[in-house]
C-alpha cells in the first residue's frame, strides 16, 4: 500500500513537471513567434520600398534614359533629358516596355513657380516630363536623379545637370 501511494505521488509529480515544462516551452515559442511577426511587417515594407527604389534605378540606368558617357558622369542615376524628350515622341511604342504604368520626371531644383509640362516647343523651360501618360496613374515610387542636357552659352556647348526625381507607377490604388 505504501509503495502504491509512493508510485502515485511519483506519477503525479512527473505529470506536473511535464505540464510545467510544456507551458514554459509554449510561452517561449509564443515569445519567439510574437517577436518574429512584429519585425515581419517592417521587413516587408522595407523590402517593398527597396524594390521600388531599385526598379526606378533600373529604369534610370536603361539605355533609353541613361547619360552614358555623354556628360562625363559615371553616376548610375544620371538621366539624359535630351534623349528622354525624343523618347516621348515615341511613347506608344514604349507603353509596356518597362512593365510599369507610368514614368514621370519632375525637376526639383532649380524650382519653377508652377508645373510646366515639357514639350518640344518649351524645352528646357519646363519641369515635368510625362513619359508614358499625361495624367496621374495610381501610386508613384520615386528616386533622385541627375537630369542632364546640353546647353548653349554664346557659341559654346556645356553640360547642364539639374536635380530631379524619376517617378514610376505600378497603378496600385
Amino acid at each position, binding site marked *: 500500500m505504501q509503495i502504491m501511494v509512493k508510485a502515485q505521488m511519483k506519477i503525479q*509529480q512527473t505529470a506536473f*513537471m511535464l505540464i*510545467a*515544462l510544456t507551458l*514554459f*516551452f509554449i510561452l*517561449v515559442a509564443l*515569445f*519567439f513567434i510574437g*517577436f518574429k511577426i512584429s*519585425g515581419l511587417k517592417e521587413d516587408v515594407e*522595407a523590402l517593398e*520600398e*527597396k524594390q521600388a*527604389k*531599385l526598379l526606378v*534605378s533600373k529604369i534610370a540606368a536603361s539605355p533609353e534614359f541613361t547619360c552614358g558617357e555623354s556628360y562625363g*558622369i559615371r*553616376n*548610375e*542615376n*544620371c538621366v539624359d533629358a535630351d534623349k528622354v524628350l525624343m523618347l516621348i515622341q515615341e511613347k506608344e511604342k514604349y507603353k509596356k516596355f518597362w512593365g510599369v504604368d507610368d514614368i514621370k520626371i519632375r525637376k*526639383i*531644383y*532649380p*524650382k519653377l513657380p508652377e508645373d510646366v509640362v515639357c514639350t518640344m516647343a518649351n524645352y528646357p523651360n519646363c519641369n515635368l516630363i510625362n513619359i508614358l501618360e499625361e495624367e496621374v496613374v495610381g501610386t508613384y515610387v520615386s*528616386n*533622385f*536623379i*541627375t537630369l*542632364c542636357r546640353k546647353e548653349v552659352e554664346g557659341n559654346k556647348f*556645356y*553640360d*547642364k*545637370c*539639374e*536635380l*530631379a526625381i524619376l517617378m514610376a507607377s505600378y497603378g496600385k490604388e
Partner: protein
Amino acid sequence: MRKKAQEEMVGFGMIIAIVMIIMVIFLWFYLNKSNNEEIIDYGAKSFVDSFLDYTSSCKEYGRDYLVVKELIYWCYSGSSCEEGDACEILQETMDGILGQSWKVGEEEKIKGYSLNITSENGDFIYSKQEGNLISANSKGYYWEYPKKRIMMQVDFSIYY
C-alpha cells in the same frame, strides 16, 4: 523525498536558465543583424549621388561651370568663381537643393535630416541640420571621393 524534490527543482531551474541563455544569444544575433542591414537608405544614396553632379552657377574663370562635387573642393581650397566666393555659392546651392528635396516636420514621415560635408582632416566645408534629430530611427548614406589627393567626405542622415 524532500532532497529529491529539491534536486528536481534545481533541474527545472537549469532548464529555464539554458533556454534563457539561448534566447539572449538569439536576440543578440537578431538585433546585430538588423542594425547592420538597415543603415543605408536608398533615397539618401540616390540624393547624394545626384546632388554631387548638379551643375552649380560657379564658373571657373574662362572655363566650364563646376558641378557640386568640384565646387566643394573649390570652397575647401579657398578659390573663387567668376560670380563670387565659391563657399557662398556652395552654401546657397546646397540650401536650395536641401530645401526643395526634403520636407521635414513632426507630422511628416521624415522628422529631420543632417548633411555634413568635410575634408579628410575633419574641416567642415558645409553643414546643415534641419528638424528633429533626436529620433533613434535614422538611416543615411556616407560617401567619400578623392579630389586632388584630398578625400572629401559627404555624410547624409535622415531621421524618421
